């Protein structure tokens, strides 16, 4: 239990009963009181006093309560990270091969982590970025460093964990996220949600944040703070993304971050570019359970040629009328799926098993779920529910396999909105970089 506080900051409630507070432990307030606001030292948020108030002139932070409440009644307990590891000099048990491009990128990542840089790796969807981290992580472990691989999304963590555990078979990896019951262990390599980083303080020599653009990280300054605080003052931070948002690019412009690109997918092809079709009145048509003629034509052709596809719609509420319209106009059965669909996994599996040839879905399938050899269509892509990042990710669902490295990506829009033009521009930008590498 001695190492529980190494590189972390915990409240008394998070410590085991009977925990002895000795003089190695640094104690600091978790919430301090200002004039009109209080400041939380765990999540760095400021809250108006009247919202954060408790009786007797005490205050709590309402912004990080998922981790257990902090307040003026609780202190934070911390022991500086001692890097108390028996470092394995050859921890990598993975024996796969990287392509020449991936190898190049892997070396760059290795350099960054060696030099503790703050770096952004912009790698397109399907570039195979996890494998490119292995050498750098192995070398970091061999140097006796403490490393974390964090993602805003639990599902990404759950997917990374077995892959990393297999690649580093002798290492015991600590996995942390909000939905678990396993307890914390002091390990050289940690995989966690970015939220869990709030419990760390100057712990990591290198922190890697995967899918950094994903909700909720992208728009959450609290989690940027968590990341910067979890890393040692001289530590390195590597951001990985397929769709960098404005925040990150601004940091690149201000030279707070260095940047490198992997603009080609693992099979060496470019991202498919988005074709746009303007259908200003599609919403009104949908009210009469009718879909645009060009969409119907496109789908008919795909069905005839047995080309499988995903059709994205903006809202769960659109699914039923799109289904009804398609079933009437195409005379086929339509399967729809959304985030809280009870039969979601079952339906996705049917698609994988080729029992059905297409799915009509909301943006929930944008990440993680991949089907080979598909085309991707969006109706109402200009709807504000689709972020630029989501639109790029959706496009990235097409052309994932070597057997069919290209695919059609067509977005039907009612007007030219910023999210759509930004997504098109982002794809054209990486493809320009990609073309240079292809020749």
């Amino acid at each position: 239990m001695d190492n529980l506080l190494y590189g972390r900051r915990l409240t008394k409630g998070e410590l085991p009963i009977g925990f002895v507070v000795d003089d190695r432990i640094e104690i600091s307030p978790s919430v301090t009181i200002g004039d009109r606001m209080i400041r939380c030292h765990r999540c760095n948020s400021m809250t108006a006093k009247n919202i954060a108030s408790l009786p007797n002139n005490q205050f709590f932070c309402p912004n990080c309560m998922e981790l257990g409440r902090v307040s003026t009644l609780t202190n934070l307990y911390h022991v500086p990270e001692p890097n108390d590891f028996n470092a394995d000099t050859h921890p990598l048990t993975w024996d796969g091969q990287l392509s020449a491009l991936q190898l190049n990128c892997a070396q760059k990542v290795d350099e960054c982590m060696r030099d503790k840089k703050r770096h952004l790796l912009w790698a397109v969807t399907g570039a195979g970025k996890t494998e490119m981290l292995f050498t750098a992580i192995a070398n970091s472990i061999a140097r006796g460093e403490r490393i974390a691989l964090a993602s805003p999304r639990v599902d990404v963590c759950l997917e990374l964990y077995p892959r990393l555990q297999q690649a580093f078979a002798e290492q015991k990896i600590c996995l942390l996220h909000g939905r678990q019951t396993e307890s914390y262990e002091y390990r050289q390599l940690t995989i966690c949600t970015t939220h869990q980083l709030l419990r760390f303080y100057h712990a990591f020599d290198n922190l890697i944040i995967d899918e950094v653009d994903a909700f909720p990280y992208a728009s959450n300054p609290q989690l940027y703070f968590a990341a910067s605080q979890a890393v040692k003052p001289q530590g390195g931070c590597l951001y990985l993304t397929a769709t960098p948002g404005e925040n990150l690019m601004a940091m690149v412009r201000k030279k707070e971050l260095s940047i490198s690109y992997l603009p080609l997918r693992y099979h060496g092809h470019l991202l498919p570019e988005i074709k746009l079709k303007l259908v200003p009145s599609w919403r009104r048509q949908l009210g009469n359970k009718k879909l645009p003629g060009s969409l119907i034509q496109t789908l008919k052709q795909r069905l005839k040629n047995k080309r499988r596809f995903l059709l994205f719609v903006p809202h769960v509420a659109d699914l039923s009328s799109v289904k009804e319209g398609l079933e009437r106009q195409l005379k086929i059965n339509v399967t729809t799926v959304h985030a809280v669909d009870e039969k979601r996994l079952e339906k996705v599996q049917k698609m994988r098993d080729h029992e059905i040839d297409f799915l009509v879905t909301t943006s929930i399938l944008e990440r993680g779920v991949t089907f080979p050899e598909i085309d991707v269509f969006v109706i109402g892509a200009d709807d504000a529910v689709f972020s630029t990042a989501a639109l790029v990710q959706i496009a990235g669902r097409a052309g994932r396999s070597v057997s069919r490295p290209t695919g059609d990506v067509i977005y039907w829009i009612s007007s030219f909105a910023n999210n759509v033009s930004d997504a098109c521009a982002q794809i054209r930008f990486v493809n320009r970089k990609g073309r240079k590498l292809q020749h």
Partner: protein
Amino acid sequence: MNCLLCGTQIEIDFNLRELVLPMKIKKRSICHQCDQEFERLGGIRCDGCGRSQKSIDLCEDCQKWEHQVGFVINNRSAFEYNDAMHEYMKQYKFTGDYRLRSVFTTEFEKLISKQQPDVIVPIPINKSTWQTRGFNQVTGITSNLRLIEALETINGSKETRQSKKNRAERMSSKQPFKLSGDVEITKKISHQRALIVDDVYTTGRTIYYAANLLLTLSPMSISSVTLAR
């Protein structure tokens, strides 16, 4: 403003009366959907503990109380302790989200004033709860009422949470309270209609202990109101 329970944006539905009398607009702290998850108690109930049943006759539990302590407390509760209430209590009491104190204030205070009490006595919390949670969950909810803090917890009484005990353990727990040492406070109880307020009525054990003590101050009557049961 976002719903304090689920975080979604609350749509304000103005009705005509509210438009005419803008002062009347009630600030809602939870959304309509969350609100519907809570089950308001009404209808025919046990004349003692207030549970819903077919007649107003004393239920078995209340008969046991009558047998054991010689009297029955008339208790009324605003809500059924269902899953939604359980979640609310978890978030409010155990996570300590003090913002949630206002969610049921209006309804709870209405039920209290319906009993027409002269003095309202809250169930106190112990010292260690003051040090960790930092608030009394009952007095948090009843922020607009004048409360007479005639009861205190006994220091050093065992600090296991009631909610972590089973029924038998609750029933056999020792008297956790004592009367306030302040005579100015305790004398306010005598010859008055006293009402005990608590957050949840489970076995009645807590309220009967509180009532036992208050009885020694010769009130005119004692009844109780809890937020949930």
